[in-house]
């Protein structure tokens, strides 16, 4: 059987198993998911894949040194010094081993990211999972592993940890260590063994630097992750699970930190408790007046934030570029305070800026990806590098990102998509997307004879902007509203939609209403082409539009354009009435014929491949 498969199953469980912290971890070992019940007596049942996890702890490394007779090792050896012991135990073996713990932080970073939203880590996770699979058999209990030897690789590793197999073993150590560190961090919170833990990250950092020179043979992504700031700082900047706004304690904490004073909306929609629902209208003026009181937000960021809040910048590409350019200014004006390192301090500064922007308007997924990229770059700055040099290199990186990932990608997508517009076509598009506009205009420049149907919807009526631009260029257009899409769909021959993001299950996260268009198109058998730059791809998966979304200002719903008096003017005073202004929805993959990216036209099922193959090079 393929060793990877069980390993993947095991992987998440393993991380729950702790051995450092005195209190909870042993319990966790026991209570870890149902399948791990045999794990309590790991050695008694070597065949079961679930018994493997405990074997990968430092404590088990200990047990290797001691002998095989310690089944409850994970509970016994739960003292902090295990850390040092663990390192020692590996350095025993050979050079390949000795290098391994040092490389650990990189992969650990990756796995940390898994919890949150780090797309690059799909790759990493995969690798580490594979290594992990190979590892346990070569782990503490060699004899039993050989006895079991249901997988050849594992047996090989166990018998001869040769140069060939050193890599998996390396990964193993990294994995074990990472786990150790996670536990350590948890413990640090409990502050039981505070001194022991604090010493550890520092050590890791030192080792890491060694690695960066050493690791010629290591896998690319590991190398990249090599120079990262100590865990403690990194922990902060890691994108965590998305903020759930029904979690009271977290919301309170966030509000304390927040720059903008937000009052909770009165008529909140019950289904969307987990999303921020704040009163609108007064934020802008509040923010405007508090300009001089805000210290830690750079004016450029501040300006962009105001623009987001006011809705001046709507398109996700435009928002992303505006944000990155603001960060460029932040970096230019940055000078490292004494006794701080640029990498740590700057990324902290960027983090505050990001959270400021997030308060102005929840960041789009593309912006999240860009941020991740930027932070990865900052992390990789060599501490030895000159500050101004580092800054210019960062600014160049940002420029490069904008150019390569947005501007050139758009050009490439236009080249691809334009081949799908033929003479006599009727192109239907929804709302307004900068990319679709470029495609249509380019096709027009190529003198293709086609007609455009623009479907629009409230409340933003973005389609009107697009309509004006296309009319100016002399394109023949039909304008209609989303309810009439079934009527107009007879005419359409192709649907072009923009997207805010594409998830790795192939669903397209896009302006609300796109799913309706795609659905009707599917019912009328009209092909749907979604155009999206690959930097917007995300490894997250989503099935519905409820779990993660953005809520717009409900007030705009009550106002009907062209009417002076509306039925719902006093909606806020009625407790039974809620207005819901969703910003995005999720188009199921089966409605999408193809996704046009700069890499070409791919079916929705290939999105995870793009995320995996091209996402990792970024972070």
């Amino acid at each position, binding site marked *: 059987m393929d060793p990877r498969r069980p390993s993947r199953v095991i992987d998440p469980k393993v991380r729950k198993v702790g051995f450092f912290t005195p209190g909870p971890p042993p319990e966790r070992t026991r209570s870890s998911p149902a399948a791990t019940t045999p794990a309590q007596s790991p050695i008694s049942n070597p065949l079961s894949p679930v018994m493997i996890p405990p074997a990968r702890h430092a404590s088990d490394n200990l047990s290797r040194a001691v002998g095989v007779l310690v089944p409850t090792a994970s509970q016994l050896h739960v003292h902090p010094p295990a850390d040092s012991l663990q390192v020692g135990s590996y350095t025993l073996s050979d050079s390949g081993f000795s290098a391994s713990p040092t490389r650990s932080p990189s992969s650990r970073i990756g796995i940390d990211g898994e919890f949150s939203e780090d797309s690059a880590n799909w790759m990493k996770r995969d690798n580490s999972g594979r290594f992990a699979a190979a590892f346990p058999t070569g782990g503490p209990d060699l004899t039993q592993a050989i006895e079991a030897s249901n997988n050849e690789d594992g047996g090989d590793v166990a018998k001869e940890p040769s140069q060939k197999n050193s890599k998996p073993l390396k990964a193993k150590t990294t994995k074990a260590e990472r786990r150790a560190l996670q536990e350590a961090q948890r413990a640090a919170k409990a502050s039981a063994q505070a001194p022991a833990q604090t010493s550890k990250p520092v050590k890791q950092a030192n080792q890491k630097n060694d690695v960066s020179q050493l690791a010629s043979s290591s896998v690319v992504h590991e190398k990249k992750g090599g120079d990262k700031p100590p865990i403690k700082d990194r922990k902060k900047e890691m994108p965590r699970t998305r903020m759930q706004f029904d979690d009271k304690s977290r919301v309170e904490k966030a509000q304390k930190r927040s720059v903008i004073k937000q009052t909770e909306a009165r008529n909140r*929609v019950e*289904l969307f408790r987990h999303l921020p629902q704040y009163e609108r209208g007064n934020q802008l003026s509040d923010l405007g007046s508090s300009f001089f009181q805000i210290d830690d937000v750079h004016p450029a960021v501040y300006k962009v934030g105001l623009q987001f809040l006011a809705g001046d910048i709507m398109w996700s590409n435009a928002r992303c570029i505006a944000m990155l350019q603001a960060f460029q200014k932040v970096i230019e004006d940055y000078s490292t305070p004494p006794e701080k390192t640029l990498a740590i301090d700057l990324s902290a500064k960027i983090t505050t800026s990001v959270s400021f922007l997030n308060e102005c308007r929840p960041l789009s997924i593309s912006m999240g990806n860009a941020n991740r990229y930027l932070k990865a770059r900052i992390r990789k700055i060599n501490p030895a590098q000159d500050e101004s040099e580092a800054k210019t290199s960062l600014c160049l990186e940002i420029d490069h990102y904008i150019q390569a990932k947005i501007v050139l990608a758009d050009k490439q997508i236009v080249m691809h998509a334009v081949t799908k517009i033929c003479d006599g076509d009727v192109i239907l598009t929804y709302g307004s997307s900068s990319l679709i506009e470029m495609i249509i205009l380019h096709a027009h420049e190529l003198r293709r004879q086609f007609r455009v149907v623009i479907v*629009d*919807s*409230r*409340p933003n009526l973005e389609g*009107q902007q697009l*309509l*004006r631009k296309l*009319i100016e260029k*002399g*394109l*023949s*257009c*039909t*304008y*209609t*509203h*989303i*309810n*009439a*899409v*079934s*009527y*107009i769909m*007879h005419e359409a021959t192709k649907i072009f939609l923009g997207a805010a993001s594409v998830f790795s299950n192939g669903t397209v996260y896009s*302006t*609300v*209403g796109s*799913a*309706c268009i795609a*659905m*009707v198109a599917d*019912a009328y058998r009209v092909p749907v082409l979604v155009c999206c730059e690959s930097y917007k791809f995300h490894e997250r998966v989503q099935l*519905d*539009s*409820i779990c993660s*979304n953005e809520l717009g200002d409900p007030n705009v*719903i*009550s106002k*009907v*354009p*062209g*009417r002076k008096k*509306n*039925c*719902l003017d006093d*909606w806020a005073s*009625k407790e*039974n*009435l*809620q*207005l*819901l*202004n*969703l910003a995005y*929805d*999720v188009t199921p993959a089966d409605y999408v014929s193809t996704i046009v990216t700069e890499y070409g036209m791919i079916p929705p099922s290939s999105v995870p491949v793009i995320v995996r193959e091209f996402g990792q090079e970024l972070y």
Partner: protein
Amino acid sequence: MPDTHALVNDFLNKLKKRKIEGSKATAKLTAELLRSVISQQRLPHTNQAGALIHAIKAIGEQLTAANSVEVAVGNIVRRVLHIIREEDVSLTTASIGGLSLQGLSDDEEDNPLVSAAAAAAAARTTLRPPSLQTLLEDMPPHSAAAAAIPHSSSSAGDSEDKTKSTDKNSRSRKLKHNVIETVNELIQEIATCHEQIAEQAVEHIHQNEVILTLGSSGTVIKFLCAAKEKKRSFRVFVAEGAPRYQGHTLAKELVSRGLQTTVITDSAVFAMISRVNMVIVGAHAVMANGGVIAPVGLNMVALAAQRHAVPFVVLAGIHKLCPLYPHNPEVLLNELKSPSELLDFGELSDCMDFSTGTGPPLLHVANPAFDYVPPKLVSLFITDTGGHNPSYMYRLIADYYSADDLVLQQRPTC
């Protein structure tokens, strides 16, 4: 008869100018108009029903031509025609029955039993649309019945002439009187159809249900409120129904009744439908195949509902039931409204004008009023006579309309 002429013209104008909105109001007004037409119609001594039918058909043709989309007009005209035929037949059979029971006065009939059977068969054949059972029951006295009572009511007039000669005056008054009485019943039925439908609400809405509706319809308001009054508590998502935004009115109404209401944009229908238990909407007309002519946007909602296996329930009074089968209904049974509902004219009006620019205008604005929902997307119709499947619609039609009236336009030459 100048009065009816004025009335008809007035109604025609209103229809043409789209001053009458909503199928219920149209239906009611049509029925009332036809009632006054009937009451003022002077009937000849022979073939009264035929004359009446002829008159109504003539008006009906005008009315349907005035607003071909408002099928309720045609429905009511057909209903009235059906009523006339029915009343005529019942009068005829009554007279035949009476005659045959009196004795053997009639020359044509030798056997009173046969004639009674024939009368019954005639009543059946004319009152009931043809079915296998009627055919089988008809078998024994078939030859006699065929001779005595012709099937179609157009020739029923001829039989009248033969059979009845004595009480002409009383009968003519009786026919008119009966017809007007039944038309009154029809008007009553239209007026109370909302209540009739609303009564069934509790059978379809359970506690904590989440209902989605789009736009606004009087029937839907009544339906939801009736359920609320019966102490059901449920939640309603109202899609606003661009470009008329009637959903706002509906939401206001529902909130005033204390229902939990959430207004969503039309574009969010697909996003929200996964959390909805049932879609309840009104209709503009129900076609014979079970398809629905509905306010614009409902096809999208129905597709979304189908995708998520959410029941799509259409509330429709019987007066919305149209005996025609739709052909290309998206275009032919539709109406394009003013672009001003979608766009401010301002800068774009130049592009829309045929006269100013050279060649065809660059910009078209499509603002259709209706959507066609095919029968396969409809889970259930709730009418004032109960719930029905889309596939059952053709059968209901046979109950309310007679096949001779289906085509109003091509009037038979008399």
